[in-house]
């Protein structure tokens, strides 16, 4: 419920920032569209427009291949704050 409210007002954050290109290397910017378990957040929750959602999904997939972002976070191998490796 609380999560629903968090995303109530829907607008594309990337359109507002006029993002034309996303770089898979700056992981900090991908954080918005990733869930706690590093899944790609659906459009209905983030409010991203189709164009930017397509962009972010390819970028996240690239970042996963480059081991910037984990593919899966399970209970067995919990990654404690993977983003702190950015130091």
């Amino acid at each position, binding site marked *: 419920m609380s999560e629903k409210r968090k995303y109530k007002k829907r607008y594309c954050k990337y359109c507002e920032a006029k993002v034309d290109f996303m770089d898979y290397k700056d992981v900090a910017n991908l*954080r918005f569209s990733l869930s706690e378990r590093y899944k790609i957040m659906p459009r209905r929750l983030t409010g991203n427009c189709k164009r930017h959602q397509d962009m972010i999904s390819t970028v996240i997939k690239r970042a996963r291949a480059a081991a910037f972002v984990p593919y899966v976070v399970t209970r067995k191998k919990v990654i404690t704050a993977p983003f702190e490796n950015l130091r």
Partner: protein
Amino acid sequence: MRNYENLVIVKPTFTAEEIAAAVKNVEEIITSNGGEIAATDAMGMRKLAYPIEKSERGYYHVIYYSVEPSAIAEIERRFRINEDLLRFVTIKYSTNREVTAWNSLVEKAKKAAAPVKEETPVEEAPKTEEAPKTEEAPKTEEAPKTEEAAAE
């Protein structure tokens, strides 16, 4: 000629010289296949998000270059054989929008490399650290603001 970017992760068990040699070797593979290296960006030793070949860390190196599209297959084949590399990621920049982004990335990499060549992981650190924490917080704050604006 088309613009490409290659990210390469070198094994963490190497010494500094061995890493430099491995990176040089990678660059040689690209140049020997007719590639022109525009800029390089050494991101340095980082923790991997998941272990690759049992190693938890890796040395990241990014190379921006332009080459004939037909040469990519050969370059990737050579990378696959190369045992110094844990992983490589090749990105193609073909559309106009992507090419301008590529140009700006090259500029950024050059600027980062300018003060101390090859050793610029310091540059990366502070910029990326701030963002993840602040990313979550402002979103909740923004929502009521826009509602207020709508009400007005």
